[in-house]
């Protein structure tokens, strides 16, 4: 169980080397987590938060408009309070406040976060947003994470994962918005509810590291008690048939 979440976290972090001198984080490229409502984005973000909090590096900054209704378990039977303490939740109520938070992130005292998470980006993009505004928000998220990485110094830097809810029947405006975001978030992980996978509430996660590695797919299952398991999707060419993954531990 330990290794599964670790594999997922490492998968989310991707752990690639720096691409350019300006972008010095080694925590992997920024990741965009995409899926429809109820596809497990929040749970996955929170799992990443718990994992990062347990690493003993820096706090985790978790931004979302509304407080989480329930805390997904992630791995393990109980939530470790020491880890929870290291996750700083902030709830910018509007886009304006979110932008202000990001622009002033360097003013904050205290240790720099090792992971910056934003849940529900779509809630901050409502209204009349042109490409410039969308790009500005995405770029500021990257810039904030880059600043935290700079503060942390050489090493892993600060990771960035942003969750965006997408519609099945999005319009062209949505498509444009998404392609803009994909400029700044080269790595994407798509989540989809999958009734065929193991476990009761099962999702299929498809990770595209954006040119820094091969694509990979997993089943992510949530048990009734909230515990999460990750199983590699059986490697097959295009036919997600009834070949259900075994319950063995996932490999990195």
């Amino acid at each position, binding site marked *: 169980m330990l290794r599964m979440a670790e594999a997922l976290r490492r998968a989310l972090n991707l752990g690639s080397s720096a691409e350019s001198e300006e972008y010095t984080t080694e925590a992997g490229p920024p990741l965009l987590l995409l899926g429809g409502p109820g596809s497990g984005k929040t749970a996955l973000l929170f799992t990443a938060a718990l994992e990062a909090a347990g690493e003993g590096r820096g706090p985790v900054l978790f931004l979302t408009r509304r407080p989480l209704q329930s805390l997904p378990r992630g791995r393990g039977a109980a939530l470790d309070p020491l880890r929870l303490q290291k996750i700083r939740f902030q709830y910018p109520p509007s886009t304006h406040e979110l932008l202000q938070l990001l622009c002033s992130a360097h*003013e904050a005292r205290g240790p720099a976060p090792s992971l910056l998470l934003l849940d529900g980006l779509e809630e901050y993009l409502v209204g009349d947003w042109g*490409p410039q505004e969308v790009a500005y928000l995405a770029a500021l998220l990257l*810039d904030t994470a880059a*600043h935290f990485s*700079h503060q942390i110094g050489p090493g892993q830097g600060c990771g960035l994962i942003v969750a965006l809810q997408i519609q099945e029947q999005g319009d062209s405006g949505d498509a444009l918005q998404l392609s803009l975001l994909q*400029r700044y978030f080269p790595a994407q992980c798509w989540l989809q509810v999958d009734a065929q996978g193991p476990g009761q509430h099962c999702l299929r996660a498809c990770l595209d590291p954006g040119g820094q590695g091969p694509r990979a797919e997993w089943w992510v299952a949530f048990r009734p008690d909230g515990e999460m398991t990750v199983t590699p999707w059986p490697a097959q060419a295009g036919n997600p048939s009834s070949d259900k993954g075994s319950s063995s531990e996932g490999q990195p």
Partner: protein
Amino acid sequence: MAVALPGVTLPSVVEELLSEMAAAVQENAQIPDEHLLSLKFIFGSSAIQALDLVDRQSITLISSPSGRRVYQVLGSSGRTYTCLASCHYCSCPAFAFSVLRKNDSLLCKHLLAVYLSQVTRTCRQLQVSDKQLTDILFTKKKQEA
């Protein structure tokens, strides 16, 4: 081979050109003609405009005690545009149009000028307070309204 990530990194051919230019500038304090030609080939008229901005020392690197940085470029129109240091974003309309919307340019002339000023080391430097840096990052959006 590394893939260019449009908002974050440059294609490797551009990276190579810039580092060759940097090496040449270190030796001769001048960008060789062949590099200028390559620049023009890749970036078209933006290259000339960007070089002009560099010549006029129009690029300023603004930093605060926190270590966070941002670039400001004084455009030919007299307006100041803000370019982020960590990824490709410029507050100018050409960035929104040619780069983001039409996707037929990699960079606007201001972002290219930032890269070139790094190569030629002709960037002005300005120290501001943490609070002032926040204002620079935050209000620029309203400037373009």
